[in-house]
């Protein structure tokens, strides 16, 4: 290597040293970053490409063409970035940017898309899936149909049914419709004995083998393991008219554009499918009185909670910083370390532990501190709000204490001394000189603390789960719920999950947070400091 690098230098004419030495430098640099690093790079990209290729094949095999093309594009871009000369910044930014684009930027955009759909319980997939599952549920035995003698077999795919029909042996299981079977293949199956049939009765009775590829033909089921009957759906699907007819009542359900087959009376067949509903979720949030009321009260409490959390922890932190900022005092370090403990304690555990301590019937606070009183700390709307703030103060004041101590110590003593000589009293020195200087340095931190508490899910959910529940709300929303915990509850708690509405709430939070951010950026001018 060293021999090669010196070679061009030797050949360089003496009269142009500057120009050629820079070429030589470039050459040297390339060689030095050379072999080892190059091998690692090629190897890493080869592994990446191989994985991506495999992933693309898998996606194509499962008809997920969008996923396949996204992976292909990302891989091509990465290859281009790392094999092209130059583009140095891109080489350093690409790895983080890929994750950022998919799991932060894309999902935010996707939230916006979901907010315009009715995605949720009963509207989970597309129309074809909904038709299929409607025809598979609601099945009844075809009236007065003849029974088929069957044998229950067990194979690699679970239980299967063997039927004799019109002198032909047919076999099928849950996934494979009845089909003629080669007698030789029967060797792979074992017949269930009578004792097995009794022991696995539930498994046997729930076995439904499709009669054919057409779901309208229904399924074959057996209740005793010997005779099977044809079951068909009470619903009949008319592909041309796109209607579902209930054959027992004669009621016709149509696709009226609400994401489910609906009867004229408004009754819907579930499951439905996910459709675009435009601004429905947003209009519901503002006009439906049961949702609007809770949305307004939750938004107000979110602001109140975030503001009061910052204010209380800031003032307690500032007060403590002042108290302990006296050089004559001994043992300040001990106090400081002990007071940091709540900050080091995981926040979610803090909420859970306090929930136990504040328990109405058995908690420490009521039983010991209040002598057996039963104060509803977590179940009365106003006391619960107080408790949430109290616990958040416990978790948050050490941060403000640390920050204020740092800010106070960085204010030069000369200022206070000069003011003292001019006859200022200690309180005046603090209020007119130290406090303004301190606020200048901690203001950005107060804003980011506000933004953090605005979405401080853990404290709320671990302590009260958002409860106690609001009486006048149509949703599962409580008095201490903040916007983010409401989103979580609407989307993931309980049997009725409404992803569309939850996403619409998320978008509302995005708008509020953006507004707060614009205001705070204007205040701190953080953007202008970037260079």
């Amino acid at each position, binding site marked *: 290597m060293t021999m090669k690098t010196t070679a061009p230098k030797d050949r360089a004419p003496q009269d142009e040293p500057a120009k050629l030495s820079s070429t030589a430098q470039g050459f*040297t640099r390339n060689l030095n970053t050379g072999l080892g690093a190059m091998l690692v790079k090629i190897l890493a990209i080869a592994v990446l490409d191989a994985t991506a290729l495999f992933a693309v094949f*898998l996606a194509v095999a499962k008809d997920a063409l969008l996923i396949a093309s996204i992976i292909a594009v990302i891989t091509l871009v990465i290859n281009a970035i790392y094999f092209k000369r130059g583009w140095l910044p891109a080489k350093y930014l690409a790895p983080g940017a890929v994750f950022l684009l998919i799991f932060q930027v894309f*999902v935010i955009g996707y939230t916006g898309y979901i907010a315009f759909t009715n995605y949720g319980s009963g509207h989970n997939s597309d129309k074809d899936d909904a038709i299929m599952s409607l025809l598979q549920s609601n099945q009844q035995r075809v009236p007065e149909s003849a029974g088929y003698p069957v044998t229950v077999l067990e194979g690699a795919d679970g239980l299967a049914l063997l039927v004799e029909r019109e002198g032909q042996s047919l076999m099928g299981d849950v996934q494979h419709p009845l089909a003629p079977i080669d007698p030789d293949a029967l060797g792979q199956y074992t017949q269930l004995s009578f004792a097995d049939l009794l022991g696995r009765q539930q498994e046997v009775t729930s076995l439904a083998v499709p009669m054919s590829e057409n779901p309208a033909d229904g399924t074959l089921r057996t209740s005793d393991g010997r005779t099977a009957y044809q079951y068909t759906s009470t619903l009949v699907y008319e592909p041309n008219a796109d209607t579902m007819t209930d054959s027992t009542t004669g009621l016709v359900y149509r696709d009226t554009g609400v994401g489910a087959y609906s009867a004229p009376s408004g009754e819907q067949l579930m499951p439905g499918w996910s459709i675009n509903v435009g601004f429905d979720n947003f209009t519901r949030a503002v006009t439906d009185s049961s949702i609007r009321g809770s949305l307004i009260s939750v938004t107000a409490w979110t602001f109140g909670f975030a503001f009061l959390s910052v204010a209380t922890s800031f003032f307690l932190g500032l007060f403590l910083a002042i108290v302990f*900022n006296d050089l*004559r005092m001994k043992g300040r370090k001990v106090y400081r370390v002990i007071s940091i403990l709540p900050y080091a*304690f995981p926040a979610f555990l803090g909420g859970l532990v306090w929930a136990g301590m504040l328990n109405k019937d058995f908690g420490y606070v009521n039983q010991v501190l209040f002598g057996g009183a039963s104060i509803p700390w977590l179940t009365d709307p106003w006391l619960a709000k107080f408790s949430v703030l109290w616990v958040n103060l416990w978790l948050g004041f050490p*941060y403000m204490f640390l920050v204020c101590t740092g800010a106070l110590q960085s204010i030069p003593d000369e200022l206070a001394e000069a003011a003292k000589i001019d006859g200022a009293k200690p309180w005046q020195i603090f209020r007119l000189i130290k406090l303004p200087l301190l606020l200048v340095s901690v203001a950005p931190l107060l804003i980011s603390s506000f933004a953090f508490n605005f979405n401080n899910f853990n404290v709320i959910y671990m302590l009260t789960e958002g409860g106690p529940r609001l009486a006048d709300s149509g949703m599962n929303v409580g008095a201490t719920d903040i916007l983010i915990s409401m*989103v979580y509850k609407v989307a993931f708690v309980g049997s009725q999950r409404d992803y569309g509405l939850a996403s619409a709430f*998320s978008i509302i939070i995005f708008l509020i947070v953006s507004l707060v951010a614009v205001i705070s950026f204007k205040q701190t001018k953080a953007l202008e400091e970037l260079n």
Partner: protein
Amino acid sequence: MSTSISTPRKAPKKGFGQWFAATGWRHLIGVALCIYAAFPLLYVLSASLNPNGTLLSSNGFFSTIGFESYAKLFANEQRPFAAWFANTMFIGLTTAAASVFLGALAAYSFSRMRFKGRRFGLVSLLVVQIFPQLLAVVAIFILLTTLGEVYPGLGIDNQIALIMVYLGGALGVNTYLMYGFFNTVPVEIDEAAKIDGAGHARIFFTMILRLVAPILAVVGLLSFISTTSDFVIASVVLVSPENQTLAVGLYSYVSEEFTSNWSVFAAGAVLAAIPVMALFLFLQKYIVGGLTAGAGK
């Protein structure tokens, strides 16, 4: 407040009143502060050592001491605490290490290179970090459900998928903290190395990374803490008990068998808190520096 006049040493026998007026009242507040800060922690420690187990019987402060709750904690098969602990450490450490690496790469390019779109990149990072990932939790859930249909290894209930989601937030605030610190390392060092023939990769991996080690520790720790205490995304992504993290698992302890299993939960809480608190106190100096640079908890 530091207006103290140098107190003459020759008067060692000050009156109590004088002492109290000067620093004594501060100690009074200090003691009150310590009780407020440390009491809940002592309470959970005492509850974990209480063999009777219920919430009510945990009120006797350190009245009985035994380790039965810890034994029960590890014996419960429906709630595999050891697995939760291992999962949390795996997810937390992997996310922290990868975040530090990705963040450092980005911070290096922003700090040392001048390119078109650099300011735009910095501003977008600042803007993107305003919107925490948990706001998009519904979209993350649906995205992972869709991905899982194609690649079962990347779907719901998979820890690698969760780590990938967390890495979406690896740039953002981390890059900012690092960017500021990288700027304090003199560019002359890079230039000297360049003249000696080192390439950009060598400068980054062998020199810069060592010089910025303190900020790497801070970012790694902050990322570890925020990952291990995340409940929202972890609870949505991880479904089966043996895959869950401590935050999700311990919450299920409390939400389902609240009062009867209290000391077992408390034992779990103590064990879950120890690594985080130890790390925190150990790296306290660095963290306090990082905090004032603008990281919230």
